[in-house]
């Protein structure tokens, strides 16, 4: 029953995510595109929730849907961009776009096929979140409560936050620091660009 529900939810959210991602490209109104992108982000976050990666899901909502996309919307509305004009006759540009999209799609497909039991017809979510795909994922809260998880210490309390932090600050510490510096440089650059330059 649990497996069926998580499969249904996965396919539901995946369909919504793909359809709304298509809407981002297909829509002519920039505000419609931005809202489609928000829906796409939200359904991706929902898939992450289904996999038990609650922290990643919520960060997806806070950072992308809650902050970055709102700024997109902000700028689009401020500039009052009208519906863009179609320019399909530009063949070289279309070819470049198709090549980039194709390479990226190939990469994602390859990665998906490398997952354990991806070709065995099992639910991809199950395959991702536990190697033994017949077992229920051990990180869902409902499961913890069902098995009579005691109240003071829920067995899986912030398990994914903890493991994420430990991995990030030990195994991937140096890339993390380098990325932080890149972000800092970006922030300083934005402040420098946005600063009012005095004439005197």
């Amino acid at each position: 029953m649990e497996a069926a529900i998580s499969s249904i939810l996965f396919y539901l959210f995946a369909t919504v995510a793909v359809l709304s991602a298509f809407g981002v490209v297909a829509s002519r109104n920039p505000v419609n595109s931005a809202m489609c992108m928000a829906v796409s982000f939200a359904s991706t976050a929902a898939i992450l929730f289904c996999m038990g990666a609650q922290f990643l899901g919520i960060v997806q909502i806070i950072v992308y849907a809650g902050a970055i996309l709102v700024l997109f919307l902000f700028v689009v509305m401020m500039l009052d961009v009208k519906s863009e004009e179609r320019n399909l006759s530009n063949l070289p540009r279309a070819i470049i776009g198709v090549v980039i999209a194709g390479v990226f799609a190939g990469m994602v497909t390859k990665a998906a096929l490398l997952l354990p039991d991806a070709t065995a017809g099992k639910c991809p979510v199950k395959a991702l979140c536990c190697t033994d795909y017949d077992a229920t994922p051990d990180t869902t809260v409902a499961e913890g409560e069902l098995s009579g998880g005691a109240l003071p210490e829920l067995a899986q309390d912030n398990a994914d936050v903890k493991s994420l932090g430990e991995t990030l600050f030990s195994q991937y510490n140096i890339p993390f620091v380098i990325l932080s510096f890149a972000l800092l440089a970006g922030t300083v650059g934005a402040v420098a660009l946005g600063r009012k330059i005095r004439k005197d």
Partner: protein
Amino acid sequence: MEHNVLASILANSCDTACCGMWFYLIVTILKLVLVFAVILAFVVLSVWIERRVAGWIQDRPGPNRAGIPLHLFQRFGSKEEQPCKKLLHFFGVPENCWIAKLFRWLRLDREIPTFGLMQPCLDGAKLFLKQELTPSYVRKVYFTLAPMLVLGPPLVAAAVIPFASGFSTPFGDVNMCVANLGIGPLWIFAISGLSVYGLTLAGWSSNSKYPFLGGLRATAQLISYEVAMGLSIIPLLMMFGTLNLQNIVQYQADNGWTILPLWGEGLTWERWFMMLPMLISFVVFVTCVFAEANRTPFDMAECETDLVGGYHSEYSSMKFASFFMGEYAAMVIGSALVVTLFLGGWSIGFGADAALHAWCDWFAVICQFAMFLIKLVAFIFFFVWVRWTLPRFRWDQVMKLGWLVFLEVTVANIFLTAAIIYFIN
């Protein structure tokens, strides 16, 4: 063959795992209904508190007349001329004694008093019955979507707030929190942050200048204060070592509330030192909650003096009411979060929780729920008190406070907490 299958299904449906599943589903639905009812009741109640306290602060009665008038009963066939007077006669109380005067002062001779509590209901009825007017120049889809996006998120965000501890039944343990997620406060930030879409879209889709400016202001303000809000709870999380709200409250029940650590191990030196960063966090967080809920002194988005009505200028009837309900729901959720993180949530305090649990689980849960509601009402009162006391900030002052004061203070506070934990504990 068929019989065997049926029998095995029947046998399986009654085993413990399946029973646990049904129990879990039913209990979750009951908790959902309870939380939803409490939030909506508090939206109505906080409107009433707002108007009563505003009246009190401004030295006027406030809404006190919306009682149930007694002549209504006569109209529907009651023969009683003056029930109150008859009642006094029945007990032999003279006309001019103090009880009769008190009754008259409470207007009991004219109506059944409700202390103005009928006012929010009548307001709601009025808004339902008003004409729904959609201007012809708006962008219809987003104009309709915006009020939903404002009202929905606060109601969803309430799912992670624990409103009592748990108790066990023969079927399994019950945790008095709809979704006991391991990321409690982040869930509330993320979901209530989504209501910014409603404000922005309302401003934009109205296709009119003042609402648009109101929407832009709301967006900028919410995003700015979200940063300081997120950073201000990091010292708390360093102290608790968990993101689960139920565990956070349990910790406070055992060791003393965050800003009132009087029981547990007692007042050791470490706890006195920890009080400083916690108080800084408390002040910053409460201010950010005010800003996030778009309330005076931070209601730049609906500042009447510069923006007519702000982002909801073009709205009427129930769409307008949904904006207001959304604002009050955000206020209730913000108060609940402050109470949960800083004021001990459902914990009764002074070690009473453990004692009550030892005596009777059910009674303890009911007491804790009542305690949570009392704290919530007290904090909503504080919200209203601030609103009617402080004047509105100027727009540039709001931005400066967010980016130049709170951001720096919260980052310094994180380092201070880390130093205290490293050197003293």
